């Protein structure tokens, strides 16, 4: 009797349930949520008197004035953002990989990655508007303006400011993905070989290295694309409004006082899902085109030895993206201590601590909630990811590479397409409005990013260490906890910090799963952004950036301290 029980609790056996548990937690609610959206899209929602399937919601949807523009905006935003961000990152990596500039950019990456999208958008908007910081720095002494000029620089009808705002935030993310891929393919030697054939460094990289890393960054690119097509919070801040992109239009419908709009909104949510798939299809087609042209280019054997101008452009583009984020952060930090900051003052005329002090109890309670949710979601995700990866190394045949796609489902299905349905599910299970529900809602998005972050270091860990340890008589569990995890401590903690940052940044899942009762720094920042007082937005946006940043600091400091006397585990980049 005792033996089977012990057997069932044996970690090696429990490990087997990890993939199943992961999928159930991850995909079950999304599928249920999609169903909960699909039914009203076809007219079925008994609470509102919709008891028969019909196509009326679709007729109404397609009769919406400006729908074509909304769709076009969503598609162009996603596609152009992704193409631009990828081009900047790839050209930069091609031009500067292996140089001091590249390492310098790498060092800046963690703080930049940790800034939530919403905080960047809020800061970027203030940077760019005609009465914003840039204009204030140069007025009136250089521009002559004592009153801000009337230019449409933010929320322009074509969505350019939205695209730029998204690009500066996606550049660090894609850069991280490229770096991870580079670590896998021994890029330096391939490029060196190509250069010995007389290729310029940039062309050598593009021809010999890029084709090898692209397959590895393809899924992250799809995630960026899907995000750009369906983003809500950033689009509310930077996007056009006449008309808005489809996602924002959907949000307005879901929130319309006239509840009958729920049907159109649901149909629109499915359309949004279709747009994401369409955007990915367009991207795949473009991939083939580029691959074809690229092969011809490689076959032609052009050496490209004079690439100075492109090299300069690449570093400037990357620097602009990085600096824009840093200035957005600085702008929010300044506002948080400003009492009065009017155009055209380059700096606040009166500084105060009141914005922080007068709201302290409330502020810290919300920060604490944010922290608790993020820590739990990130820990659970990290444990599940480690479990899955460990199982994969022990029984590689059990986990097909195809299953990796499933992890991306939450990143590719638009949030708005399943969250309303998932909300009904939560209410039905009486789970809504609690911390647990919010943690789950965050977990959906935390897990894929933790996996992305940890998978490469975990898989590239030298298994001969494990074999040596086993042959020295250590049990697999001891190998895992005494050898493997300590050696991977930095990677595990960075993955945790990535998960933590993702959790802190969640807006829609917090709103839907928390039934509005659970406030986090992000929901407060977005709620306040509707209210317009930049001083308070500054306080929340600043804290919103500070928490994830601290997580990354801890992730760097803990291994650095623990292994301060172990040279081989020091950071070398």
């Amino acid at each position: 009797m005792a033996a089977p029980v012990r057997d069932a609790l044996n970690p090696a056996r429990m490990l087997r349930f990890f993939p199943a548990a992961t999928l159930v937690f991850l995909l079950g609610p999304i599928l249920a949520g999609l169903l909960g959206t699909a039914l009203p899209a076809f007219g079925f929602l008994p609470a509102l008197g919709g008891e028969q399937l019909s196509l009326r919601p679709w007729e109404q949807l397609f009769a919406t004035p400006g729908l074509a523009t909304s769709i076009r905006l969503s598609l162009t935003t996603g596609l152009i953002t992704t193409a631009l961000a990828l081009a900047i990152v790839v050209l930069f990596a091609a031009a500067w990989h292996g140089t001091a500039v590249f390492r310098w950019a790498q060092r800046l990456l963690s703080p930049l990655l940790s800034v939530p999208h919403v905080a960047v958008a809020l800061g970027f908007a203030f940077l760019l508007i005609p009465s914003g910081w840039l204009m204030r720095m140069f007025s009136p002494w250089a521009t002559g303006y004592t009153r801000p000029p009337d230019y449409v620089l933010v929320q322009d009808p074509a969505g350019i400011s939205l695209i730029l705002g998204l690009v500066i935030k996606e550049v660090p993310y894609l850069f991280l993905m490229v770096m991870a891929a580079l670590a896998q393919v021994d890029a330096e030697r391939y490029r060196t070989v190509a250069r010995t054939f007389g290729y310029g460094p940039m062309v050598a990289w593009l021809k010999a290295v890029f084709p090898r890393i692209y397959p590895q960054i393809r899924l992250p690119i799809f995630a960026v694309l899907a995000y750009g097509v369906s983003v809500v919070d950033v689009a509310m801040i930077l996007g056009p409004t006449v008309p808005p992109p489809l996602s924002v239009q959907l949000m307005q419908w879901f929130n319309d006082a006239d509840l009958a709009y729920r049907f159109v909104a649901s149909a629109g949510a499915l359309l949004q899902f279709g747009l994401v798939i369409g955007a990915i299809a367009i991207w795949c087609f473009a991939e083939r085109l580029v691959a074809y042209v690229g092969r011809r280019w490689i076959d032609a054997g052009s050496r490209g030895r004079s690439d100075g101008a492109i090299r300069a452009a690449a570093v400037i583009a990357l620097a602009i993206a990085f600096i824009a984020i840093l200035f957005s952060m600085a702008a929010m930090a300044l506002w948080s201590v400003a009492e009065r900051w009017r155009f055209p003052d380059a700096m606040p005329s009166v500084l105060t601590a009141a914005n922080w002090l007068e709201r302290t109890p409330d502020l810290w309670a919300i920060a604490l909630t944010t922290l608790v949710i993020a820590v739990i979601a990130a820990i659970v995700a990290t444990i599940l990811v480690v479990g899955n990866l460990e199982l994969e190394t022990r029984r590689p045949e059990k986990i097909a590479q195809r299953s990796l796609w499933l992890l991306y489902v939450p990143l590719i299905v638009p949030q708005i397409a399943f969250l309303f349905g998932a909300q009904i599910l939560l209410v039905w299970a009486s789970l809504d409005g609690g911390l647990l529900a919010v943690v789950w809602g965050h977990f959906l998005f935390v897990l894929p990013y933790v996996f992305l972050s940890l998978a490469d270091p975990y898989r590239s860990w030298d298994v001969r260490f494990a074999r040596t340890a086993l042959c020295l008589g250590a049990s697999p569990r001891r190998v895992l906890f005494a050898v493997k995890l300590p050696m991977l401590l930095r990677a595990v903690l960075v993955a945790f910090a990535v998960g933590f940052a993702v959790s802190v940044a969640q807006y829609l899942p917090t709103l839907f799963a928390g039934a509005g009762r659970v406030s986090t720094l992000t929901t407060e920042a977005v709620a306040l952004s509707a209210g317009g007082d930049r001083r308070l937005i500054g306080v929340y946006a600043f804290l919103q950036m500070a928490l994830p940043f601290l997580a990354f600091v801890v992730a760097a400091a803990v291994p650095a301290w623990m292994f301060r006397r172990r040279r081989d585990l020091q950071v070398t980049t």
Partner: protein
Amino acid sequence: MAHALELHDVHIAVGGRALIDHLDLVVSPGTVTTVMGESGAGKSSLLAFLCGTLSPAFAASGRVVAGGVDVSADPPERRRIGILFQDDLLFPHMSVGQNLAFGLPRSIDDWRTRSRLIADGLAEVGLAGFGDRDPATLSGGQRARVAVIRVMLSQPRALLLDEPFSKLDAATKGRFRPFVFDHVRKRSIPTLLVTHDPQDALAAAGPVIHLGSIDGAPA
């Protein structure tokens, strides 16, 4: 007391191709048998099979007896078959002493005995007082010796050497090779050496087996 390492009818195949074809072999205690062959001839697969870490992608059969016990069905950690790779694979997060302690069997549970064994082991290879050092601060030759002591302290029934000298420079190799073989002899451990360097086989001064010629590939 000392037992041989015995391989009975060991057969390893991958994708229908036989790498090791029904091999029978007895390695006597304190002797070194050398297995030679080209890259891809199955040398490393053979060692992984003996360790119990062979990937399930391979189809393997046969029995392994070490220390007088049939260990064929045992997981790696219970076989007590030690292995040394061409890299020393000292755990970088542990001190030199902790690395050695990791190899010591848990059955030695007296703290003072454990420290004494570690100190003795270090002294034996001329590294007395190195216990608290970071492995990264040691020279290649010193690290290689620590790796040997680590596997010796684990009291293996047999030892496998996977090209352990191939990354060392000629001078270090010249000193390190006899060092390893001396230890093996002194402790009467049956040892299997895998290499493609004929010099290694000469130095081992034991039987030599050639792999790879069996299915027509050049030996």
